[in-house]
């Protein structure tokens, strides 16, 4: 079913703000949650903070929101340092991971709450509430209570509630993680559409790389409280600057190789290495499944399993030296467990890490 998305109403249009985090540090006791994090987000940009649990992405978002005080550094919105500004004065909109609608209020009352806090006159409030609910296709649900809505609907109301006040920045703290897969994809696309229409600067925290790759202008991959790499989804996927990024973003085969100058030799195949800072010698090469192919001649092995993934198929092969390799290939090329096969590397540049 195709739903025609309404254009963002003018009553909600926002001017995107510049967001800067400058050498931000945050400690929880001895644990350093943010280790001098610096990040600049341009007006209207959709930036995702992506990383494993405990990498500091949620702490960074909460610090930006004003829900966590920072120990050092600066947080600027449109050049104004807001590090000491309380959360209720920061003019941000936030959607939380948990369902955060006020249970005793209807959808309409929930969405109107932020406008009431800003003392928006009743007539304008009414209009903006309906505009916001229209935007998320829930105008007909205005008089329902949160417990009468599905999880996806609740998060859409939360999105409308966050946007109705025309905040300078929209913060999304894993808003899709509690939803089932189909709703997640649908709401993900809806968030992106609304964000593009409104032109609001958005920071999206997620641990789901697929989500981040699908919706972001740029992705900041975080590790141990700092940004490991920031770039467009294509840059991160095709040119990871570190083994961590290569391993975390997308799927990679970790294969032993020998780095010599700008190239790495893996099973006799010569492929360009992405990280020039790694010294020559034994390395681990991070090779994408789509950069490995079945061939008549190559490294021999036995098929372990094969998975149908819709438009592609991924087959796991145990090479003769017991290394396990995943090959991505066409759906029509069917391999059965136990088949003897040979694989080769296609020569796309790979991230490398010293083999310790």
């Amino acid at each position, binding site marked *: 079913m195709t739903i025609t998305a309404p254009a963002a109403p003018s009553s909600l249009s926002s001017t995107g703000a510049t967001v800067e985090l400058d050498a931000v540090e945050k400690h929880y006791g001895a644990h350093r949650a943010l280790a001098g994090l610096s990040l600049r987000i341009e007006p209207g940009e959709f930036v995702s903070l992506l990383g494993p649990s405990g990498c500091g992405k949620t702490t960074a978002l909460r610090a930006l929101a004003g*829900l966590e005080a920072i120990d050092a550094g600066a947080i600027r919105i449109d050049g104004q340092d807001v590090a000491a500004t309380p959360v*209720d004065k*920061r003019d941000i909109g*936030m959607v939380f991971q948990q369902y955060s609608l006020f*249970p005793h*209020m209807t959808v309409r009352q929930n969405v109107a709450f932020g406008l009431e806090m800003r003392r928006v006159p009743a007539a304008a409030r009414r209009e903006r509430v309906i505009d916001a609910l229209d935007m998320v296709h829930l105008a007909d649900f205005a008089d329902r209570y949160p417990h009468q*809505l599905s999880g996806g609907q609740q998060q859409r109301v939360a999105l409308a509630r966050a946007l109705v*006040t025309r905040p300078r920045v929209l913060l999304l703290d894993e808003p899709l993680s509690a939803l089932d897969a189909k*709703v997640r994809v649908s709401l993900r696309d809806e968030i992106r559409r609304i964000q593009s229409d409104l032109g609001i600067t958005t920071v999206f925290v997620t641990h789901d790389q697929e989500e981040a790759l699908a919706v972001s202008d740029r992705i900041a991959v975080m590790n141990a409280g700092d940004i490991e790499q920031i770039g467009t989804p294509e840059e991160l996927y095709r040119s990871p600057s570190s083994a961590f990024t290569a391993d975390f973003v997308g799927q990679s085969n970790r294969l032993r190789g020998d780095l010599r100058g700008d190239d790495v030799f893996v099973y006799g195949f010569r492929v360009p290495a992405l990280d020039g800072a790694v010294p020559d010698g034994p390395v681990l090469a991070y090779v994408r499944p789509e950069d490995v192919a079945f061939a008549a001649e190559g490294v021999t092995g036995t098929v372990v399993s094969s998975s149908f993934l819709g438009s592609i198929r991924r087959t796991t092969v145990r090479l003769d030296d017991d290394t396990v390799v995943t090959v991505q290939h066409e759906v029509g090329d069917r391999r059965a467990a136990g088949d003897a096969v040979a694989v080769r590397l296609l020569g796309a540049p790979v991230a490398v890490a010293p083999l310790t």
Partner: protein
Amino acid sequence: MSAAVGSRPARTTSTRPGGATRVPRFGAAPSRVTAAIVLIVIGLVFAVPLVALAQFTFRQGTDGGLTLAHYSALADPVNAATYQPVFDGLGASLLIALITVAIVLFVLLPAQIITALRYPRLRRVLEFVCIVPITVPVVVLVVGFIPVYQVVAQVFGSGAWTLAFAIGIISLPFAFRPNAAAITAMDMAVLTEAARSLGASWWTVTWRVLLPNLRRGITAACFLTITVVLGEYTLASFLSRTTFQTALVLVQQTDPYVAAIFSLGALVFGFVLLVVIGRIGRRRPRTPKDPA
């Protein structure tokens, strides 16, 4: 777009031959007959003493006859002096209940909210402190209170209302639990952060978001506190204060029928409070007004 999940899912039914519809039960639930028997037995256990008490208030002497004379005697000016301690005690108990409820609302509840929001690690400590009074016999507590109340009497006088400080302590376990259950039932931290991010001050968060969602727990805590106050005898007796219960014991020595009438009234009042707590706990949100 997914549909609203407004109504309960329909229960699976099957049709018996002949057209009768059978609604399957959970396997763990007792049958209707078993449930009815259990309810009747429990009802009798509770009802027999109450009915006996009620019957006693109508009894005329020892010949088994029934009369309303004991009730009408309450309104007789001739007996005013005899029954005055009961009314004084009732007034004192209601004042103590009011102060104790205030302690629950303005000391215990804020402590629980702040603990839940700012110091969640202290929740267990607070729970332990609040539960302790139920584990210590009141007689033992009184021994500790006696020297304390010598000071209290010097500062605040020896009015019966000062008992509220002691009763406030023994009612902590009863007030703590409903509040804690209500706090646990709502994701207080997230709702608070959501409201704050929408521009609400702490006062607004408390008044507009937290208290409405804690209403059932708070109401239950207050009613249970009132029932504790109205049933408390040991503290008042040992600390030599006149309350409803001590007055009843006093009057009972001269007119046991009137004491029974007031006891019955207190029990009915407590029962009504518990019914009200139950009804509030089940009530759904009202149809909303347009906020805009």
